[in-house]
């Protein structure tokens, strides 16, 4: 696979169609890190294995504005796993990036591993081939995961008081580094509510409810947009179970509006549209 990716990247960069190819390279301490390849002779840095869990779609935002005034935005190549392809669809749908500016090299995926174990989110993943790609590399694995929201249902079984205690305990650890927001491909506002000064939504006091406010705000802003790539939870230095919050919303969006984020780039997002005659359970 690594050889195929390198060959493809080299071909694309040599043809001059791309200015940059985003992939993975060997990092420090046995980890993998994103690689930005600008020249064909650098493609040997690229690798692909089961540690390549990061969602590279986040880095497309850096190629959103020209480096010099009047410069035409050059197309970018990117490696995309099935889960990342949802994020890409969300960006296409929201008009953040034009389809023809991205050359998508899709990769089939058996699931990413951490400490030799298949990640939980990959066990839940039902997609083995990216939904959007220009070329797809790799064989299609037979095994498919299934999402059953078991842990979310477990949370729902608790009483409101217990849930409040649980979340306050989890949010208490938050150091407000905002890495979850930074890693999120769908969080691309130039000025985040968390850093707005007027009105100042999120205060700077060392106070759990303010942390709670940030997290619920972040989760709600991703309602119907979060595709569950879990980048936020992976980067959290305090191990706050953010997927438990994100997936609750995904579950409810699916239940209320019959919608899953990132399935295609055409369906309007549920909270940006409405139907006049719809029965929605409010207050019940």
């Amino acid at each position, binding site marked *: 696979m690594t050889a195929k990716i390198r060959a493809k990247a080299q071909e694309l960069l040599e043809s001059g169609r791309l200015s940059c190819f985003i992939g993975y390279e060997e990092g420090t301490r046995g980890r993998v890190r994103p690689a930005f390849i600008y020249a064909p002779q650098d493609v040997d840095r690229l690798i692909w294995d089961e540690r390549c869990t990061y969602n590279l779609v986040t880095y497309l935002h850096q190629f959103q504005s020209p480096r010099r005034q009047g410069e035409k935005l050059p197309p970018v190549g990117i490696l995309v796993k099935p889960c990342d392809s949802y994020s890409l669809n969300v960006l296409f749908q929201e008009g953040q990036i034009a389809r023809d500016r991205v050359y998508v090299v899709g990769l089939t995926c058996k699931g990413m591993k951490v400490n030799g174990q298949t990640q939980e989110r990959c066990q839940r993943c039902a997609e083995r081939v990216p939904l959007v790609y220009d070329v797809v590399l790799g064989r299609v694995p037979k095994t498919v995961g299934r999402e059953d929201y078991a842990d979310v249902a477990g949370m729902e079984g608790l009483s409101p008081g217990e849930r409040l205690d649980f979340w306050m305990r989890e949010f208490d650890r938050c150091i407000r580094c905002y890495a979850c927001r930074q890693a999120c491909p769908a969080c691309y506002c130039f000025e985040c509510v968390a850093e707005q000064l007027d009105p100042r939504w999120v205060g700077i006091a060392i*106070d759990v409810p303010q942390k709670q406010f940030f997290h619920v705000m972040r989760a709600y802003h991703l309602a119907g947009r979060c595709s569950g790539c879990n980048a936020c939870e992976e980067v959290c230095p305090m191990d706050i179970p953010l997927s438990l919050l994100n997936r609750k919303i995904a579950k409810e969006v699916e239940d209320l509006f019959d919608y899953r984020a990132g399935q295609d780039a055409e369906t309007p997002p549920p909270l940006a549209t*409405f139907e006049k005659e719809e029965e929605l359970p409010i207050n019940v």
Partner: protein
Amino acid sequence: MTTDFEPPINIKGSEAPQIVGFLCRWCSYPGADLAGTSRLTYPPFLRIIRVPCSGRVDPLFVLKAFQDGADGVMVLGCHPGDCHYVEGNYHARRRYALMHRLLEYVGVERDRLLVDWVSAAEGRRFAAVTADFTAQMKELGPWGGKRVDS
């Protein structure tokens, strides 16, 4: 004029729930006004914030109200189909259907957020909705997740 309710000044704790009401400028706020001009009485614990439309009420407003000391939040708007801005309350309806479930999930009891439709002619209904909601809040008691200094 006699009232059925104690003035809130000396009442504390669960007897005096802090309730914030976001009322739409075209229906629910005139509805509250009508309740007043009709000399209807309702519990005095509601702090009304007038907004242009229920669609203006960002779910963050509700979240912030809870964080800053509210025990209950009401979002009242025009009946679906009657929005002054044609579609604001349709958007609000979708947002709060989701917000309700999210708030419940993070530990705000479902009853603490009320989203309802009150027209400008429904002064009596406004008083009834407010009285019911206040009674509910008294039953639930103060919310546990507020800021310490609120």
